[in-house]
Each structure stands twice: as C-alpha cells, then as structure tokens.
C-alpha cells in the first residue's frame, strides 16, 4: 500500500497497463507533450514514446472514431476527452458506432477501448464546463460506465477497463484529482467492473452514491453518526452495469434510502435506482426513496450560486434526517 492521489493512481494504472500490453496506446488532446490538461498522462510520452502516446487534433468525434477503428484492428486504445463536456461532440461515434458495432455486425468483432473523461462541477467553470453527463452514457446499451470515488478504485477500475474487451466510458471527477488514499502496489490489483462497494457499514439508512458524491456521503455519514443516525454508504463505482445485488441487499437491511446524484435531477440516475428499488423491494421500505440531485439548471459561474446547484454535505444530511424522522 502506498498513499497517493487519485491523479497519480490513474497515472500509475496507465503506466502499468502500457508496460503489460504493447497493444495499449493513449490518444487525446494535449495528452503527450503537455502531459494532459489534468496531468493524468504525466510521464507517458517520456516512457513510451510518440508511437504510443499520441497528441490529436481538436476533433472529438474523430478521436473516438479513430479509437473504434484501432480497436477493431486489434489495438487497445485509451482515449482521453479533455472533459466530459466535449463528449457531446463525439456522441455520434460513441452512441451510433462504438455502442452498436458489436451488435449490429452480429458479434463478429469487439471493441476493447476505454474513453477517459474528466467531469463534474464545482470549479466555477460555468455552464459549458461543469456538467455531469453520466446518465447520457448509462442510457445507451453496448458500453460500460465507470466512475470511481477513491484513488484505489480509480487505479483498479481503470486497469479493469483497459483489460476489458468491451467499450468503457471512464469518468473522473475533476475535484477528486488531488484527493489522497491508500492504493495497493500490486500491479495485478483490479477492481471488478459491475461491482458496487459498501464504503461504510450502517443499519438505519442506505446512502447510494458515486464518485465525488460518495466522498460527501461518507462525510455526511460521519457527522450523522454524532447525531445517533447510522448510515450505510454504498458506492456504485460502476454505473453500467449497475450492481443491483449490493444496493438492494443494503436497502433490504435498512429499509430507508437516500440516493445522491451530481447530475441533473430530471432523468437522473437516482430516478432509475429508485425505480429499481421500488420494483424489487417495495415491501421493505419504511420511507420513500429520497433523492439529492443537481439542480435542473445550466451551471452558473459565481461560486456563491454554483454551490446551490450541486449536492452538498448538508443536503445529504437533511435528506437522511427526513427519511429517518418520517418528514418526507
């Protein structure tokens, strides 16, 4: 175990997988010489050279299309889209091509590719650079969607994504890059795709969260413990496929649920999770599933009002108190 940042854990995952498999290569805007806008690709060019660490033009749709073709040709591309916001320029290749090719060609090919995308709000980057678009990808069959909360999960999940033979959308939260945690040294340390994790056990309320919302949920749970409320925090980690078993078994034990999502509330993943909980265990619920969500507004710049638009620890605590006290 070593303590490292989420950024360095991702960087190490890339290096280990590139050392392990010569078919892995990295491409994206400013990933080589500039070492990445968030410096996740630091040192890659120096170690692996220009053949495997490729700066690209600002052509997001083609970054993904080239990755699709390279994957079809037998390589294992790891594309970086500078931020998730720019993925909207690449949705044709992501949704119409990457997500469909295996199926519409009758299973005759597969696309072992990963698309890394930093995202999320909270840095006063205003409406076009603060989005949480995870549900856009969750909605589409044909790809996995991962979103780690901790440095260990960041490393283990990215390694699994690169080794996986399916297309993987790998989201990274911009506000977590400097967060620190213990990360296993073992180069074979992998976090399985499709497996949520109970990050904190508890017995009164289940808080289901992902990425930065997990970190806020853990803080909320800590503080609520002081009020005598015991929360179990389930970190989804994998948004597609969803690990229903893990969160449903927690809900069956607690009977109360708060889902925390950074994305917009309308059609947000909290709605999907709530619906699955109602279908699977309506009978055990002692309160309606409560959602803490991003506000349905384009993100404002000013930090005073930006904060209102993103779930905060206090919002999570309030929601938990509501479901425990019956004020919903």
């Amino acid at each position, binding site marked *: 175990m070593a303590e490292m940042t989420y950024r360095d854990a991702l960087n190490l995952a890339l290096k280990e997988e590139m050392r392990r498999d010569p078919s892995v*290569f990295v491409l994206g805007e400013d990933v080589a010489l500039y070492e990445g806008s968030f410096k996740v690709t630091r040192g890659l060019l120096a170690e692996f050279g220009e*053949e495997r660490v*490729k700066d*690209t*033009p600002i*052509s997001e*749709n*083609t970054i*993904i*299309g*080239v*990755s*699709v*073709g*390279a*994957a*079809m*040709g*037998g*390589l294992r*591309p790891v594309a970086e889209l500078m931020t998730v916001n720019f993925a909207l320029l690449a949705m*044709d*290749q992501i949704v*119409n*091509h990457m997500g469909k*090719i*295996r*199926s*519409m*060609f*009758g*299973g*005759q*090919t*597969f696309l072992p590719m990963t698309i890394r995308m930093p995202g999320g709000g909270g840095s006063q980057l205003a409406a076009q650079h603060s989005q949480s678009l995870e549900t856009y990808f969750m909605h589409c*069959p*044909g790809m996995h969607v991962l979103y780690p909360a901790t440095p260990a999960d960041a490393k283990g999940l990215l390694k699994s994504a690169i080794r*996986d*033979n*399916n297309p993987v959308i790998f989201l990274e939260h911009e506000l977590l890059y400097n967060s620190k945690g213990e990360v296993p040294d073992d180069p074979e340390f992998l976090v399985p795709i499709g497996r949520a994790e109970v990050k904190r056990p508890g017995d009164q309320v289940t808080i289901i969260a992902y990425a930065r919302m997990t970190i806020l949920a853990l803080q909320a749970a800590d503080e609520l413990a002081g009020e005598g409320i015991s929360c179990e925090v389930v970190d989804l980690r994998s948004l597609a496929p969803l690990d229903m078993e893990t969160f449903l078994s927690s809900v069956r034990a607690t009977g109360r649920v708060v889902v925390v999502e950074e994305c917009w509330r309308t059609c947000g993943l909290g709605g999907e999770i709530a619906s699955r909980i109602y279908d699977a265990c309506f009978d055990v619920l002692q309160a309606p599933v409560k959602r803490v969500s991003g506000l349905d507004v384009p993100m404002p710049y000013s930090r005073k009002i930006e904060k209102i638009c993103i779930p905060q620890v206090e919002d999570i605590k309030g929601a938990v108190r509501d479901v425990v006290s019956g004020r919903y």
Partner: protein
Amino acid sequence: MQTRLRMVLPDQELLKLYEQMFLSREFEERCAEQYAKGHITGFLHLYSGQEAVAVGATAGLHRDDYILSAYREHAQAIVRGADPRRVMAELFGKATGICKGKGGSMHLFDPSLNFMGGYAIVGGQFPISVGLAFSAKYRGEDRISACFFGDGAVNQGTFHESLNWAQLWQLPVLFICENNFYGIGTEVHRSSALASIHKRTCGYDIPSEKVDGMDVIAVYKAVKYAAEKVRESGRPYFIEATTYRFRGHSMADPAKYRSVAEHEVWKARDPLPNFAKQLLEEGIATQAQLESIEARCRQTVDEAVTFAEESPWPEDSSVYEDIYV
C-alpha cells in the same frame, strides 16, 4: 484498340470483372423484387449503375486491405467475397444472415474478408477507416484502409477531421468518393460550395484525382495506382469516381428530382453493356461466354434467394446476444 483491355489485365481477370458487375446488378435487381414482395423490409439502397466503382476498386486493392463503406454496400461486400446467400439472408432478416439478422442491408460486415462494415450514419466510416489504418501502421502490417463514401458525406465534420488526421499522422488511407451527384434528392451543387469534390483535398495536401466511375478499367487503374502510392508513401490519397445510380436513393424514393433526359444520358453509359461490348470487340469473350457468365450469376442469385427464404428466423433470445463480450 483490340489489345487495349489486354494491356491492363489478362482475359480471365477481365471476365471476372464482368462477372462481378453482372452479379452485383443481378443481386440488386432481385433485391428490388424481393422488397416488392415484402421479403426484404426496412431501408434498401440499391447500387445499380455504380458497379464499375466497387468492382474496379476492389480489383485494384490487395486482399488484406481493409474496405469500409456506407449503407449502399451490398456490391462492395459481395465483390470482396461475401457469400451472396448470407447477404440475401441478412436482408431477409434471417438467422443465417452475415450479421445474424442484426444488421440488415446497411450493416454488412465480414472481418474474415477484411470487409469492415457498412455504416449508416453519413460520414461515420471516415474516422473508423483512419483508426484501422493506424492499427495497421502500429502493428507493422502491410495493408491499407480503403474508405468508400458518397458525395453527400463530404460536408460532414468527420470528412475534414479524418482527412486532416490521416495526413497529419501519415496513415495509409485511400479515400474513394462515389460521386453519384445526389445526396438523396439534393444535387451536389445545392450542397457543396466546391462541387468538384477531389479538389477539396488541397486543404490537407492530399493528392487526388477524378476518374470515370462508369468505366471499370479506368477505376481499376486509378485505384491500383493510388493504392500503390498509399502503400509506398504510407500517406492518404483521394479518388473521386463520378457515377450514377439508376434507381432512387432508396426503395422509398421514386427519384422525381432527376430529369428523364439526364437519366438517359447516364443509362447510355451503363458500365455493364459497355464493358460487354468492349470484351466482344476486343475478342476477349464470345457472346456465348458472356451468356454463360450471366446465367451463372442468375443461378447464384436464385440460390441466394432460396437460401434466404428457407432459412430460420433468429431466436427471440438472440436480442441479448452479441452486445457485450
């Protein structure tokens, strides 16, 4: 004049070009018939009229070269070697189809032939062809990527992004524009500021040329030359083949936006009878030989239709198959 064709290819190869063009035409016309009978459903874009492009170009490529195309791609797949029975079964939506009935007319694919797909989002195949070329270069493989597309695709962002990229990264991509002058019902002058499509590559410093897409030998020679250039230089090249589709954009399109006179001009340039005439005039084939080729093609297509008719439908459970590895 008598030896002109023989200066290009041996007799057997010339006859093969004729056979491939005839088979393509026969296949497409039978598709139209099967569509009218309700056996083929969905979108159906037929290639009749453009055969010289697919046939001439494929002959100019190596067997290891990748081929990608758009949604009017039956001929490209069959000429590359796809089994006409399995292509027809795919169009019928049967389990024995080349993509198990999941793709249909617009999404033929056979990686064993390096036929890397029909794509139905206009311009979607550009970056994928660049990516395949990159993988070939990365892995040190001796192959190029041949990307077919229509005149309508050249105004998509992916066209410009991919031309820039292929030249920037020095990748072996041969872009082959099949300019049939209409993007559905919009004539090329109504959609392109510079309608002379091959001139567009100057912005990316990619060499290009224009070829008569109704002349199978002209297409063959141009593609063979271009493919060798791409192979030698490891850089992209661009061919614009001017051609004409004798039918509407799809079966739903009666093509009323084109004049009868225009249609007649192009009909007179039909690559099949014109090439047949040339083969006869140059003494490469007799009428009887050509008729025997044509009979063989009709039989192949008959068998394809029978195979498709008799094949089973996909199982309902197959909807969940072949999505994830």
